[in-house]
């Protein structure tokens, strides 16, 4: 009888696949603080009139929050770069498709 057959009733240990160093808990709190401050600044733009700079500033803060969550909380900064490529690929495709779609609806000129 063969003895090298893999057992089928053993729980799969998935802790060593793609193992990478994660930031400490205190680092996560610092990241959350930065996100909280950015959100507060976003909300502040609702109450403070900053004129035509409003939308560019909101977009910059939105993108900054997006990248901070993706890089630190979703660990893209530390993980295999293929994960980033798949996600960013989908994101770029979505942005391209819908910018074209919005252009077809004359969104940029008519709003």
């Amino acid at each position, binding site marked *: 009888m063969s003895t090298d057959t893999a057992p089928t009733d053993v729980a799969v240990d998935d802790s060593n696949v793609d193992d990478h160093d*994660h930031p400490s808990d205190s680092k*996560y709190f610092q990241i959350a603080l930065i996100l909280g401050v950015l959100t507060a600044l976003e*909300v502040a733009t609702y109450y403070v009139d900053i004129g035509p700079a409003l939308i560019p500033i909101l977009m910059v803060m*939105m993108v900054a929050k997006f990248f901070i969550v*993706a890089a630190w*909380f979703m660990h893209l900064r530390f993980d295999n770069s*293929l*994960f980033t490529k798949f996600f960013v690929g989908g994101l770029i495709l979505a942005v391209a498709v*819908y910018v074209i779609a*919005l252009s077809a609806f004359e969104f940029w000129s008519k709003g």
Partner: protein
Amino acid sequence: MSEAAATDHATTTGMSHNKLAMWVFLGSECLLFGALISTYLVYRGRFATGPAPGDIFDIPFTSVSSFVLLMSSLTMVLALSAIKRGDLRNNRIWLLTTALLGSLFIGGQVYEFTTFFREGLGYTTSPFSSAFFTLTGFHGVHVSIGILMLMSMFISSLRGSLRKEHSETVEIIGLYWHFVDIVWIFIFSVIYLVPSPTS
């Protein structure tokens, strides 16, 4: 084959295929939410005789909801950090906290929808209302599914079937949760904070 060698080559690519599948799924979700956000942007000025977006949005209330969801991303990542250390007690605490914060967000959304309905904004009132409820409703469904997954992990942990060696399961569900948070970051800025038409 030794046990160490078996672990080193756990997958044919050397990376977790489950995690890769989740990232591919999240990439495809960008297209779904992109479609819903674009549709809203096209129709936000078409409110006919119904309430206009600028008239009914409650920015202070939505700001608090957004902050709650943002902080749930912190508690989610703390749950992952705890299980990676083998700290099952703190893992359960943070999983439950994340689910509670998610529930608080959903409660806020139900309150917002109810208020809008009382102010005359139904699903079919105008193209704006249909696009708004579809977008935010889809996001709410995603959050609700996330809460169910979190509670499922919490119950598994209580039963003793979620241990340190299953940390990748927590990480994958965490990815989904953070994505839901990222989508709200977009929705909050583009739909609520960018000045909306008024009647």
